[in-house]
């Protein structure tokens, strides 16, 4: 029977995971696709999954009374969502497909439970997400610097 293991293994997120941990992740994974314009999740909803983007483009957005602001876009090889890791497990932003997008969804409850029983798995996941948070924080700081306005 075909499994999601090859797809999962091909994603950069899985690059540093052991075969055993990859196998665990497969048990929590499902294939998903989103049409252009379709919401992956909305602010305030339960963060019950995170997504490994295989192709396409997802925008992280905040809706204001007058407009919608896009904070960043995520594409192939990137990871969408870390609110599933931290209580109260609610999404802080909207995520919307900008174009047809395929991803692997990983069930949050499944992974949280398995991480509690297998701390090595939990540690590996946290390392991956900590690295991602560090990259995004750094990128956000660069955006805030408004460097393009400075001379040099």
């Amino acid at each position, binding site marked *: 029977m075909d499994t999601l293991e090859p797809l999962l293994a091909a994603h950069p997120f899985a690059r540093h995971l052991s075969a055993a941990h990859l196998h665990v992740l497969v048990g929590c994974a499902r294939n998903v696709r989103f049409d252009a314009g379709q919401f992956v999740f909305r602010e305030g909803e339960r963060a019950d999954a995170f997504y490994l983007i295989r192709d396409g483009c997802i*925008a992280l957005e905040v809706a204001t009374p007058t407009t919608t602001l*896009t904070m960043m876009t995520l594409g192939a090889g990137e990871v969408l969502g870390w609110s599933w890791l931290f209580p109260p497990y609610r999404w802080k932003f909207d995520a919307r497909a900008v174009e047809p997008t395929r991803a692997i969804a990983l069930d949050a409850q499944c992974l949280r439970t398995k991480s509690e029983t297998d701390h090595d798995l939990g540690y590996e996941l946290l390392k991956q997400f900590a690295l991602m948070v560090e990259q995004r924080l750094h990128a956000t700081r660069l955006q805030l610097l408004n460097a*393009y*306005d400075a*001379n040099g």
Partner: protein
Amino acid sequence: MTPTAEPPATGPSAFLPRSFRVAAVHRETAETRTLELQPVDGRPAPAFVPGQFTMVYVFGVGEVPMSITGDPARDDRLVHTVRVVGAVSRAIAGLRRGAEIGIRGPFGRGWPLTEALGRDLIIVAGGVGLAPLRPVIYHVRAHRAAFGRVSVLYGARTPDELLYRRELARWRRDGAIDLQVTVDRASAGWTGLVGVPTLRLRQLTIDPARTLALTCGPEVMMRYAVRELEHCGLDAAQVHLSMERNMQCAVGLCGHCQFGPDFLCRSGPVLRADRVLPRLAIREL
């Protein structure tokens, strides 16, 4: 095939501007214009290596260094893109078709295109930093088979501040290079990428052993681009960046563009990152 130019001029002619006439002016952004210049004497425009610069002299106003931004294969005109930052650049941006200006050069060391032959290229540009890299893109597209994978990451603050928008659209359409354009702040109607270009480096498929990277933009962006590229497995010696300083004589005499042990007008403006990176973080240098 690799574009060549005379070595940087050092004789008396290096100080004598040649007259050029403005043949066309293109509005890129609110503060940026691209000027096409034709030699008044009817002879070909000077050959140049992508990455080199000229000294552009607005008679009665002053002279500034400007990267050459046109196609190195064309000798009928010289192309410059100017962003208004002071009196001279404002005067250049305000020139109309038919106006005359003086040009000295080209000067300096350009991008290492010979070294890039047969290799994958990653180009990271920010804001007006795309301007000195545009001749590289022209050259690579004209000799596409001579290079491996070519990825161009270009970022600007907003969609309205992107340079060469028609060309970007054409380059993305024909797929000869992998072009990713991203903005810090999306405006209504923008359906492209949002975020800094350096963040996208980790999404590229990179074979560090056969890759060369070129970057130009705000220095803070270039610093982080080099670090991200190092994270992707490249050595700083495989990364080249273009530096901007106050070039005046352009032939290594006056010292205004001194950057540590280098006079950027002669040693640069393109330098290897391993040579220049330690100095980039030094304040006031």
